[in-house]
């Protein structure tokens, strides 16, 4: 299954230029779509069979050190399909192929078309490796590949300095997280002696074996050498925290989220792919995959939940005041990822994955919708210059509205179910551990904030009056205006979207004037509609029947049952009966979150539709909070001052050291040899008689020594 996108990537990399545009794009789409078909087939076969055991496919040993019984290190290249992987595979290939198709239209005029599809295919391949790998080490391979591809894709328009530096930022921040992941892997190996997830010798197997658990999973890690005497950290806690460091990097959680908003420099389909379907969910997937370790370390779970909740509210607060449509969505993604981690952190891994899935649907929808808007407005991304687009781009607007209600959690749509489930689980957890009430409160506030900023986006973009400049109608001025626009936006990429418009306009024959916002070509709209449909029903699919859905705390939902073999608890088995909420509480909670969401929408409506109170006045009244928010809490500046600046200082010091001391030593030796040579060459006068004199003098010297030696 991953072979297809890989083949596509390789073909495109080597032959893409010769294949020509339509063919290379088509090839890439076919590869991913083929992978999707295989995924559907494989998953349906798997689901119809016995789902309690994962389906393993061992390809070949990758690292085998030692032989037979005394095998010391063993890692294989192998794939595995289990319920968790099935969900991820379907999301990755499904959304991935939709995005590939969308890119066909979106990137149609870019010069490096086949390079784009090469990266895109490579990305899909890496993600499939990550999801389908049957051991941690192989998953790490996919993990790193995804990091690489994100760098390539974010920096796709590498001639633009901001894009290039955004790519670098993403890569470096991810690297910080990978550091944690890697050390976690080392620890897994030293304490479990294996990287496999399942099987008798897998991590899960070791945990199941009471004899081994004592030495492995529940053992202690002696850190006395570092922290002083007597500091022993449980191995499970250490591993889970380290893995979580990796997850925060990849999934953009609080300390390491900064790369994600900058990742908006990439082409919009890439943003959709990275944000919605694949990359950022890798961390969530990894935590869910390693859940058996997390369950042994409740403290790590609390950390996960806390970081998740903080991220959720933090990012949502920043999203409140951003003006770039893609940045709002980016911060919204960070915030939603926070939700997922909150879900994982409450120990309800299935709900986290559930939210991952629904989020993939509606966030891909929102991003592609935003892409359509940007496309239709000639690369305009500033919300303040949009407005009233409902009139101009009906399909985009309506699908975007669907995404909007999905993300803010209005009942029949996808986001409602998953988000509410997370909040409910948090509340449930809070009854055991009051600390979680804080998380619940944060989550609830974030619901309100989410509703507010998304409504603000929607109202600013699609309602009211169009605030962009309407260009006059003659083709000549259009061309000039197009040039002007490009210069003004500072865009360097050579794909004037206007050409696309011109073509599609002629085709449609609607007589829409270029320069006036207008609808995107049908190829892009179809994906939007498909995703909108998924966003609507996506939340209902996993629930086992409507009657059960309201008191979902009582019985495990169908989705949870489906995922049970993957996420089955190893540690908490029968430890305590989880107290489920009763239906009334459940209803109250649901009403509470929906109420909060509606409240957020109402405020946004009041501010941006009715203009009471006027947003500008409000910003004026709360100058300092507004400034903090619009500068993203100065986190970038903080990192700049605390990490980047000292880093640069260190780098320049090291460079001076290198030039002065290391190079100095090397050059010094050379200069010494040259100096001696210069001195010695004077002896080589070239006068043979001079040499003869020195012979004689030397002979006399030797004789004198022998004659007069003491």
């Amino acid at each position, binding site marked *: 299954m991953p072979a297809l996108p890989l083949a596509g990537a390789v073909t495109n990399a080597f032959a893409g230029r010769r294949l020509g545009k339509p063919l290379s794009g088509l090839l890439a789409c076919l590869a991913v779509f083929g992978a999707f078909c295989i995924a559907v087939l494989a998953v349906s076969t798997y689901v119809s069979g016995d789902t309690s055991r994962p389906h393993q496919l061992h390809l070949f040993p990758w690292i085998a050190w030692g032989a037979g019984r005394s095998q010391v290190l063993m890692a294989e290249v192998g794939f595995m399909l289990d319920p968790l992987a099935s969900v991820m595979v379907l999301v990755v290939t499904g959304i991935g192929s939709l995005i590939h198709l969308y890119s066909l239209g979106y990137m149609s005029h870019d010069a490096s078309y086949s390079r784009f599809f090469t990266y895109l295919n490579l990305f899909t391949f890496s993600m499939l490796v990550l999801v389908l790998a049957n051991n941690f080490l192989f998953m790490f391979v996919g993990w790193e590949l995804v990091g690489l591809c994100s760098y390539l894709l974010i920096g796709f328009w590498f001639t633009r300095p901001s894009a290039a530096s955004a790519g670098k930022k993403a890569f470096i921040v991810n690297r910080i997280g990978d550091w944690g992941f890697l050390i976690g892997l080392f620890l897994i190996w030293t304490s479990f002696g294996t990287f496999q997830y399942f099987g008798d010798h897998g991590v899960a197997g070791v945990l199941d074996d009471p004899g081994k658990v004592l030495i492995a999973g529940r053992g202690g890690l002696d850190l006395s050498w570092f922290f002083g005497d007597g500091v022993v950290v449980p191995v499970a806690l250490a591993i889970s925290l380290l893995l979580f460091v990796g997850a925060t990097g990849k999934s953009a959680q609080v300390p390491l989220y900064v790369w994600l908003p900058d990742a908006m420099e990439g082409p919009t389909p890439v943003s959709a792919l990275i944000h919605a379907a694949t990359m950022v969910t890798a961390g969530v997937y990894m935590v869910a995959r390693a859940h058996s370790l997390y369950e042994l370390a409740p403290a790590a779970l609390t950390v996960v939940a806390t970081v998740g909740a903080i991220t959720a509210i933090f990012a949502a607060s920043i999203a409140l005041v951003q003006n770039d449509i893609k940045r709002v969505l980016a911060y919204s993604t960070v915030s939603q990822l926070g939700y997922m981690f909150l879900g994982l952190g409450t120990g309800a891994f299935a709900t986290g994955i559930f939210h991952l899935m629904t989020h993939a649907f509606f966030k891909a929808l929102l991003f592609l919708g935003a892409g359509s808007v940007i496309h239709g407005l000639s690369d305009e991304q500033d919300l303040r210059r949009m407005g009233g687009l409902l009139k101009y781009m009906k399909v985009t607007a309506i699908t975007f509205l669907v995404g909007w209600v999905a993300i803010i959690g209005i009942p029949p749509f996808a986001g409602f179910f998953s988000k509410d489930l997370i909040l409910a689980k948090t509340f449930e957890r809070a009854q055991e551990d009051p600390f979680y009430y804080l998380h619940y409160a944060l989550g609830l506030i974030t619901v309100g904030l989410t509703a507010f900023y998304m409504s603000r986006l929607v109202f600013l973009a699609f309602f009211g009056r169009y605030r962009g400049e309407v260009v006059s109608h003659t083709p000549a001025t259009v061309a000039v205006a197009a040039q002007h626009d490009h210069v003004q936006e500072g865009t360097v990429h050579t794909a004037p979207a206007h050409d696309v418009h011109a073509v599609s306009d002629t085709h449609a024959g609607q007589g829409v004037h270029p320069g006036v916002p207008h609808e995107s070509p049908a190829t892009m709209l179809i994906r939007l509609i498909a995703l909108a449909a998924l966003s609507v029903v996506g939340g209902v699919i996993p629930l086992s029947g409507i009657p059960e859905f309201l008191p979902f705390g009582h019985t495990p939902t169908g989705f949870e049952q489906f995922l049970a073999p993957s996420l089955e608890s190893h540690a908490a088995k029968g430890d305590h009966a989880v107290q489920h909420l009763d239906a009334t509480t459940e209803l109250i909670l649901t009403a509470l979150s929906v109420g909060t969401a509606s409240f957020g929408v109402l405020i946004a409506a009041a501010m941006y539709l009715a203009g009471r109170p006027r947003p500008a006045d409000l910003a004026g009244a709360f100058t300092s909070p507004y400034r903090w928010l619009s500068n993203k809490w100065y986190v970038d500046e903080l990192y700049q001052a605390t990490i980047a600046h000292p880093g640069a200082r260190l780098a320049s010091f090291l460079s001076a050291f290198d030039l002065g001391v290391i190079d100095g030593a090397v050059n010094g030796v050379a200069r010494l040899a040259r100096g001696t040579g210069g001195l010695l060459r004077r002896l*080589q006068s070239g006068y043979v008689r001079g040499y003869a004199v020195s012979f004689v003098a030397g002979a006399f010297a030797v004789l004198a020594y022998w004659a007069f030696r003491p």
Partner: protein
Amino acid sequence: MQLPFLPFPLPAIPPNVPTEAYLILGGILFALGCMGVMMRKSVITIFMSIELMLNAVNLIFVAFSRQLGQLDGQIFVFFVMAVAAAEVAVGLAIIIDIFRSRRTADIDDVSWLKG
């Protein structure tokens, strides 16, 4: 030592000539050769001076051979002569070649290997 089949008598070496005299003569010849090597400009003269030095050494070898009553020194002299002959052959060839290419036999003009 009288060899009977020689048609004429070997000139008698005056037995009263002491070894010191040979050594002094050898030393003078060697010093002359040495000065010649160091001071003359012509390559050919230098060459001849070297021969002179070699023969001075030969003389001393022979003198010591007589003094000690052993043949080692004389054998060594034959070696020196053989080597000197070879050296003359090679050395003259080199000199002729230099002369052909440079049109000079002045040792001071031959300084291309100067560092």
